[in-house]
């Protein structure tokens, strides 16, 4: 088991060294994203699945920014019209939110609707083992989230594409407004 940790730690330390000496902002974002991803794997192995999930989401966010930087100078998605840009952004954002909600329902309907929100209720906070219970609930949710690889994989890619397009449209909208 130590060898697995060693295999993950060596690239993290190497990339941390690269991060200090890197010059371009794009490469800084990319290296930081990869470090987050490696840490997410490490913490998944250490059974801190909630925190691993947070860092996976952060990795997705940084990927979106890197994607935006890559597409920024191309003519792939540029909206010249202000109103059109705003409409695109709002539409794509709503679509992403709907897709995330559908994803959650697909993973485990009962977990999301009944157990998860009932367990984390105000009455439980007054409990003696509230912190432990809260973390266990979050871990269960993260477990259910991570264990359905196929659904996660398919829907996450769709969400990521829509989010990337939404971010690009939004940034173009802000640029056109010259804020």
């Amino acid at each position: 088991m130590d060898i697995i940790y060693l295999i993950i730690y060596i690239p993290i330390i190497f990339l941390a060294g690269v991060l200090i000496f890197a010059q371009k902002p794009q490469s800084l974002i990319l290296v930081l994203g990869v470090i987050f991803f490696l840490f997410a794997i490490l913490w998944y192995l250490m059974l801190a699945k909630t925190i691993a999930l947070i860092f996976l989401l952060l990795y997705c966010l940084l990927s979106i920014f890197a994607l935006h930087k890559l597409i920024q100078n191309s003519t792939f998605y540029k909206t010249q019209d202000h109103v059109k840009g705003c409409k695109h952004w709002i539409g794509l954002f709503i679509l992403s939110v709907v897709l995330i909600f559908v994803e959650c329902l697909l993973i485990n309907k009962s977990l999301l609707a009944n157990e998860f929100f009932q367990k984390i209720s105000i009455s439980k906070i007054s409990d003696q083992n509230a912190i432990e219970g809260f973390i266990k609930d979050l871990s269960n949710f993260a477990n259910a989230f991570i264990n359905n690889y196929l659904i996660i994989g398919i829907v996450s890619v769709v969400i990521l594409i829509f989010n990337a397009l939404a971010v690009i449209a939004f940034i173009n909208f802000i640029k056109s407004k010259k804020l």
Partner: protein
Amino acid sequence: MNIHIVANSSLFLIGLWGIFINSQNLLKIILSFQILILAVINNFIYFAYSYQNFDGQMFALFFIIFAFLELIVIFFITIIISRQKHSLT
């Protein structure tokens, strides 16, 4: 020696080193600070894992939230400075 402690110590030292050698560049200082934070969070999670105690994870979770809020503040200060001076150095 324990591999986790050695790796976390080296990450922490790399972060400190980055802050000292890049003291002229604000963006690099922020990223070095990020490495420091990651090393500390990793320590919390490792000890939580090794002692089978969930409190470490809870501390790590709070620490992540505080660290990112702090980073947002630093980031906006950096933007204001860069707009006034037209550089990040």
